[in-house]
């Protein structure tokens, strides 16, 4: 066949290429319908055979890679026909979410099971990225009633269960018992922040540490831990969907925090990880996740004490938010993969495995029937976290349901706690930002 590659043919080829490019530009999301609530419906698994293998995406919360592997090995022994591939899909909840969302957009490479944090699962739900677990719960006889009620209720929406609790935590008050003793303070966490303000100058004077208290890193989860201060002063980020972070109570709480750094000069702000700063002896106390407990106990060269979060002038309790991650099943994989993942999900959250996970990380056991006797004998501090669960409070909607709110809260906290910005003005600006996010990104997707 003779080639006749003259200019006309060449331009024709180029035109075809451009046409293909133009056509492919019409790929991506469908623009046929409204971009609102596209939550995947529940799946009927009757007659479905579990897939031979699936990927489990985890960020290994609380440095849990080894214990995750161990539990997977136990699962393989019991279910040799289902292979679980443990994939490190990020270093934290944000990175795993980024990978998951990108795979959703690419419509390929999705896992069978994914770790989802408190601020991400609702977005997955509203985008239709995860399935309701009710059918799997029924078919596999997962004992939902045995889960800690407050933890499993976090993933319920529109009368369906969208995830099961996994690495669940609360913040804990960590203190250096040696420093407290040297300062002549009682061996316990302060009941209120006002009480701690009285202790702080003594602590700073006697300990030699840089700070009596260090606020958790703002780039991490400032919006999570600062709820403790806001609630203690009678404020909050929001009341249901009403953003009220600029209320007099909220402003007073953050003003007190700012004063502790710039006026009273006994507090600082962590740059990376408050638990590491605490374990390194930079500060006499801090607030960090229960998931950091085992790491702190291993690395600290002093006696570590833990206690409930301090209250404030308005509320002594409940002032502790729940947090951490659950496990969900993507909607974009086959029924077979979903069933295999659900089988593993059931196994992973069994009482004996949640105990094993808890013992390795410090995260709370998610099942009420979990026998923690041996774990508590080895690490009695976990008991504080478990007991504190009874006095936790559901997180503010603005933090957990508004996309990007956590980051906006962290930026505002940075302005207040590192730049000594005007608290009222900063909170007023934050309110406007959060309301904008709600109106644009959430309100259209809410079930009426």
């Amino acid at each position, binding site marked *: 066949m003779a*080639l006749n*590659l*003259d200019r006309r043919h060449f331009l024709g080829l180029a035109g075809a*290429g451009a046409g293909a*490019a*133009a056509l*492919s*530009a*019409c*790929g*991506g*999301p*469908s*623009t*046929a*319908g*409204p*971009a609102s609530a*596209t939550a995947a419906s529940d799946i009927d698994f009757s007659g479905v055979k579990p897939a031979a293998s699936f990927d489990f995406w985890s960020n290994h919360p609380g440095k849990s890679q080894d214990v995750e592997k161990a539990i997977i090995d136990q699962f393989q022994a019991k279910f040799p026909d289902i292979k679980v591939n443990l994939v490190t899909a990020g270093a934290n909840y*944000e990175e795993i979410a*980024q990978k*998951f*969302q*990108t795979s*959703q*957009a690419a419509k390929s490479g999705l896992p069978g099971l994914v770790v989802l944090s408190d*601020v991400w699962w609702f*977005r*997955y739900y509203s*985008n*239709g*990225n995860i399935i309701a677990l009710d059918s799997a719960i029924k078919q596999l006889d997962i004992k939902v009633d045995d889960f800690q009620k407050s933890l499993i209720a976090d993933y319920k929406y529109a009368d369906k269960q969208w995830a099961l609790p996994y690495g669940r935590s609360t913040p804990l008050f960590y203190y250096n018992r040696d420093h407290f003793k040297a300062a002549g303070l009682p061996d316990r966490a302060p009941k209120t922040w006002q009480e701690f303000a009285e202790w702080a100058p003594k602590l700073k004077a006697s300990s030699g540490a*840089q700070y009596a208290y260090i606020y958790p*890193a*703002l*780039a991490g989860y400032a919006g999570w831990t600062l709820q403790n201060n806001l609630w203690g002063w009678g404020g909050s980020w929001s009341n249901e969907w009403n953003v009220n972070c600029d209320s007099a109570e909220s402003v007073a709480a953050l003003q007190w925090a700012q004063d502790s750094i710039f006026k009273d000069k006994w507090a600082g*702000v*962590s*740059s*990376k990880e408050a638990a590491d*700063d605490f374990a*390194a002896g*930079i500060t006499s106390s801090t607030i960090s996740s229960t998931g950091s407990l085992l790491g702190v106990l291993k690395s600290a060269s002093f006696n570590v004490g833990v206690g409930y979060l301090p209250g404030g002038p308005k509320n002594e309790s409940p002032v502790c938010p729940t947090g951490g991650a659950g496990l969900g099943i993507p909607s974009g994989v086959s029924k077979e993969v979903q069933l295999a993942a659900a089988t593993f999900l059931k196994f992973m959250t069994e009482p004996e495995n949640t105990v094993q996970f808890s013992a390795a990380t410090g995260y709370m056991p998610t099942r009420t029937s979990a026998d923690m006797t041996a774990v508590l004998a080895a690490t009695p501090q976990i008991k504080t976290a478990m007991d504190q669960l009874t006095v936790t409070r559901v997180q503010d909607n603005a933090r957990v349901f508004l*996309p*990007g*709110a*956590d*980051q906006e809260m*962290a*930026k505002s906290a*940075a*302005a207040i*706690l*590192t*730049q000594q910005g005007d608290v009222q003005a900063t909170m007023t600006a934050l309110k406007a930002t959060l309301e904008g*996010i709600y109106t644009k*990104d959430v309100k259209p997707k809410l079930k009426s």
Partner: protein
Amino acid sequence: MTRQLTDRPRAAVETKPTATPRRRWSPRARRDFFVFLALALPNLLLIAVFTYLPLFNNIYYSTLDWTLGSASATVVGLDNYVTFFTSTDATKVLGTTAVFTLITVGGSMLLGLLVAIALNSKIRGTTFARSAVFAPYVLSGVGVGLVWLFIFDPGYGVLAWLLRGIGQQSPQWINDPQLSLVMVIIVYVWKNLGYCAVVYLAGLQSLPQDVMEAASLDGANGLRRFLSMSLPLLSPTTFFLLITTMLSSLQAFDLIRIMTPLGNGTSTLIYEAYLQAFGAFNRAGYSAAISVVLFAILLIITLLQLRFVERKVHYS
């Protein structure tokens, strides 16, 4: 051309009913063209698939209200652009981009030139010094960012340790948005000045020595020779560096991502586009609009440089 055609004898026109005869390619020309296609087409295809296709896709996505991860989206026309340019974020982001770009480009070039002058001298150890200065440029941005984070850490960083030695507290390099920008700029300039130094060094070494010696014989001192002769003769190098470092600075990502993941105070256009789509917001359409704005800025800057700055360049 028209005149030639009309001047042709009528008979000749009538005997050729078709307008223009198809030019027949000689076997050699055809073979050359085939070789050209064989060599160029794969690259053209790669550029089309990995550069132009995403570009056009991105322009299309910028007209959508699309949440990353969602299977559906709404066409909103230019709404994303309007939202960006009418938000307070636009002022902040464009301001941060301008500050970051101007200081990193100016800093890298100025320091690079000074280092190049030092390296151009005939003293011992310059070969090692050249390698040492250039090394940061070839290092991974992620590794460089992590190491510098340890240096800047206000708790247990080297800088904090040195400051404590003289009784001073470390500034909040990581938490304070303004200091975060200063921190990233310092590291970026440190990493990239080696590139400017090496390019300037090559330029300095290619300067005509006879002209420089003549100027010296005429009594021009070192500073005068540098300002009146070396610098103008280096203008092609300066022009080249201006374009390449500005494009590189406007697209700087790795150091910002590693050192300030939240982008608090360091959110340049490209990082804002990343945060909006792949950070917590998942606003893919809005992010695409920011990317188009960045593309337009890059295009305009490059065209302006080619149109106006190049006039000042002495190529000989």
